[in-house]
């Protein structure tokens, strides 16, 4: 048992915490850049009168939900270098995550928009509102409230998704854990700490999401 503590020190913990910051940064990047994509996808999926647009949105979502995230990361990462683009590693790894966010959040947005009763749309139209006005004043207040709990739930999914950047060698929390465990042989301890850090990031988010969901159900 004592062998587990060989060569492991507080410096390694700091290293892991730094890597955790990288993880959080990746999430922030993916989520903020993914939201506009999601908005686009979500809205075109509700375009009642243009089936072609609806189909494109559907296809996009199906592709990203029907393939492993690992594959998406591989393909995007190596695909980008094929195109000759020399992007900084952080960006190159964020791109598949951005597209992934676009798909899942796009679904959430679609569900949010569809949660607005048809009658509200008609009332707004009958008052002479244009489509952009309808979206902003009639749909948004209702849809956003509906979308928040699943969005927070998705953030948890995203945090876990960043762990797969490991496979292209990018140093985020999981890769950092691997590196530390290789150099200190305190594998179990290291990965326990890594797990605890992920848990520490995600569990509060999960609680918030569950709490918001319960509150929403009560008010409905």
């Amino acid at each position, binding site marked *: 048992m004592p062998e587990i503590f060989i060569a492991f020190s507080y410096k390694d913990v700091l290293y892991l915490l730094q890597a955790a910051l990288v993880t959080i940064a990746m999430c922030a990047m993916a989520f903020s850049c993914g939201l506009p994509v999601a908005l686009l996808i979500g809205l075109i999926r509700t375009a009642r009168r243009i089936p072609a647009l609806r189909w494109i949105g559907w296809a996009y979502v199906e592709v990203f939900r029907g393939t492993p995230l690992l594959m998406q990361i591989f393909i995007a990462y190596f695909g980008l270098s094929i195109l000759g683009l020399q992007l900084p590693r952080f960006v190159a790894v964020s791109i598949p995550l951005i597209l992934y966010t676009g798909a899942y959040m796009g679904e959430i947005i679609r569900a949010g928009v569809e949660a607005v009763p048809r009658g509200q749309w008609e009332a707004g139209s009958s008052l002479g509102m244009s489509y952009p006005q309808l979206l902003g004043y009639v749909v948004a207040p209702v849809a956003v409230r509906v979308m928040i709990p699943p969005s927070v739930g998705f953030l948890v999914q995203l945090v876990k998704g960043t762990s797969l950047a490991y496979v292209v060698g990018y140093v985020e929390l999981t890769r950092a854990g691997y590196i530390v465990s290789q150099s200190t042989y305190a594998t179990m301890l290291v990965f326990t700490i*890594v797990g605890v850090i992920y*848990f520490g990031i995600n569990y509060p988010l999960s609680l918030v999401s569950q709490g918001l969901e319960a509150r929403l159900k009560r008010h409905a």
Partner: protein
Amino acid sequence: MTYTFHWEVPLRELPAFLWGALATLEMSGVACLLGLLVATCGALARLSKRRFLRGAATAYVEAIRNTPFIVQLFYVYFGLVTFGINLEAFTVAIITLTVNCGAYSTEIIRAGIQSIHRGQTEAGLSLGMTYWQVFRYVILMPTLRVVWPPLASQFIATMLGSSVASQISAEELTYAGMMLESRTFRTFEIFFFIAIIYFLMARLFSFLFSLTGQKVFREAWGQL
């Protein structure tokens, strides 16, 4: 663009990929079935009156749902090695995948059971049914009907998640791709091709689940 695509590389290796796909199906299939057993116990534990059971099950579910699968995989793999147990990577993958799928499925089943209104149980009992009859007709079938779509989604997600097992060298589809990649360096073509295989498998299973569900429950679900 100075890159020329060599699509014949993955196409040549189609048999290897098909074996890989079968291995993936085997891995995720076993994990889902075992996971279902775990989930049923877990769901009942979560709904149990005994605080210890409830707490243990909740801890299990939350621990798994809030940590990445790859970390769980490393944990189990290296953990077993540390304690001197040397299992095949494939087996380790199945174990971890079972634990993972079980946690998510627990929540699905729990929600399904809870969605059955208590009043129906009381109605059944008042009609003179035994507890077993109430369970079978009032609880079981409606619960299965409710959990079928989300459970199907979870199983498909588990199958897609099994690709991560390649990182501990478990012999499944993604690993087959990695092996070929290290020989030929045609990363893009290989993984694009493999992604298509995963996609087709996912669609196939979605369709099968939908079809089975319709036959058994006579419900008109869209695609799952």
